[in-house]
């Protein structure tokens, strides 16, 4: 049992950085960014290729961030400059990334077994893999939260936050909303790239299919974080994304242990998200049923 919980903790931390990325687009910019599905694989692919070529895993992580920034930039340009709806822009980039990821990896799967990863220094200190992932994943999440907390307090960060809330007002205050939307998408996808890189290195392989369903995992984690841990100030909101991501993994580990076939995982996650996103409607429905309608013909 302890092993299961530790495993869930390490997975949760790795995916938490992506969850924060999803939060930035979905909640702050009010955009459902499908690019995520391609970017998580892109981060993994770039890192795996760099490592398999014998270069430093840190260089792999750095290039995964750059690749994520670029993926976000493309989606942002499609949406703002070409006027393609945000959802479709993300889907287009995601589809294009399938081909690009294959080119980066040159094959469907790259194994990193017995190759150096960012976790190697910690393991050399005597930690086992799970703990190395927890320590590094935790550090990474803490660093990301601190940086974002600072950034979204700055002038540019405030402008990005306001863009999601009221783009009309933001333009009236002299801010180019194209720029703030593109910036938000780039930051989000850079975070997703980091997650992809860290995940590939912890599981010792990169796989073309690993991004499938990532957006739904991100949304599920996000909603769990919001529901369970509230959203008072910005720092706590980011922190609740990490806690939500960990809780999601614990839930998954538990239902698997209770005997749910792992093939049904995605169905389970999707249903969870549908339920959580429709909660306001369900509440309305119940209230509407219980309370007699006022007035009307």
């Amino acid at each position, binding site marked *: 049992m302890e092993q299961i919980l530790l495993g869930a903790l390490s997975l949760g931390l790795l995916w938490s950085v992506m969850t924060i990325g999803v939060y930035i687009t979905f909640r702050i910019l009010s955009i459902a960014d499908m690019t995520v599905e391609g970017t998580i694989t892109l981060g993994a692919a770039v890192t795996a290729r760099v490592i398999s070529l014998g270069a430093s895993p840190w260089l792999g992580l750095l290039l995964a961030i750059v690749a994520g920034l670029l993926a976000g930039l493309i989606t942002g340009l499609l949406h703002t400059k070409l006027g393609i709806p945000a959802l479709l822009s993300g889907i287009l980039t995601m589809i294009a990334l399938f081909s690009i990821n294959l080119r980066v990896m040159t094959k469907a799967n790259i194994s990193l077994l017995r190759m150096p990863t960012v976790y190697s220094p910690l393991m050399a200190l005597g930690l086992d893999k799970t703990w190395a992932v927890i320590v590094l994943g935790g550090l990474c999440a803490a660093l990301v939260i601190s940086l974002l907390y600072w*950034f979204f*307090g*700055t*002038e*540019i*960060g*405030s*402008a990005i*936050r*306001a863009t*999601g*809330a*009221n783009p*009309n*007002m*933001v*333009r*009236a*205050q*002299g*801010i*180019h*909303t194209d720029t703030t939307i593109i910036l938000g998408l780039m930051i989000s996808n850079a975070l997703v790239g980091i997650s992809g890189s860290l995940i590939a290195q912890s599981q010792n392989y990169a796989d073309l299919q690993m991004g499938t369903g990532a957006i739904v995992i991100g949304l599920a984690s996000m909603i769990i974080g919001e529901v369970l841990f509230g959203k008072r100030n910005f720092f706590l909101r980011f922190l609740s994304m990490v806690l939500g991501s960990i809780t999601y993994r614990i839930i998954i580990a538990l239902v698997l242990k209770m005997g749910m076939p792992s093939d049904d995982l995605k169905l389970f996650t999707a249903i969870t998200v549908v339920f959580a996103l429709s909660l306001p409607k369900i509440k309305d429905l119940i209230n509407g049923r219980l309370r007699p309608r006022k007035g009307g013909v």
Partner: protein
Amino acid sequence: MLRVQNLTKVFNHNTVNERVALDNVSLTLDAGDFVTVIGGNGAGKSTLLNCVAGLYPPDAGSIFIDDANVTRLPEYRRAAYLGRVFQDPMMGTAADMNIEENLALAYRRGRPRGLRWGISAGERVLYRQMLETLDLGLETRMQSKVGLLSGGQRQALTLLMATLHKPRLLLLDEHTAALDPKTARKVLELSDRFIQDGSLTTMMVTHNMRDAIRHGNRLIMMSGGSIAVDVSGEEKSRLTVEDLLKMFEQARGTEEEIPDRMILG
């Protein structure tokens, strides 16, 4: 201060829904002019203000602010010259952000934004003082989300945001129309005070004829995309609601109606 020359704006060009919203409009405002704008539904009042603000490009004509040709300048770059308050109280502020954050966004209008902290301690003092002048108790709620404020409070805040730095031109498009009468009067009084104190060049659209007469030094009436009546100074101060109604009857286009709320004003 503002010079509009032969401005034409057609919506849905070459379709059955084609609408000539502005038809060769020319208008010059001197510094310190406070112009009230009236006219029936669809007369082109909002379109005129929106063209000046740069929401969409005109089909013909040009717009100068302070002798700078801004006709092709996108909305966000024109914002440096303008303060705007909209009809919809939701439009002017970011509901998810608190009062001081909204003010801080407006405080940086027309200035480069970087990685400095989004709001400084000195600004907070300034904002508190300015909020006190609104007399709505907002100075004690600077950390509250704007979404929690009433429509009138939001309009007053938007007004403050629009005038935080003296705008070259203040555009008010029926900014009290969505408020209850008492609140509307209060927001209108505030607007008048801000405009007088700052000698702000202003265009204010209103459906209330009495307000249009009572406020400002100049009044224009739009009809069918043109300016039908333009009175100022002495002549304007002698206007009565009956005069305006008569002028309206003469000027109005075939499809325009006198809105009920206009007569009631």
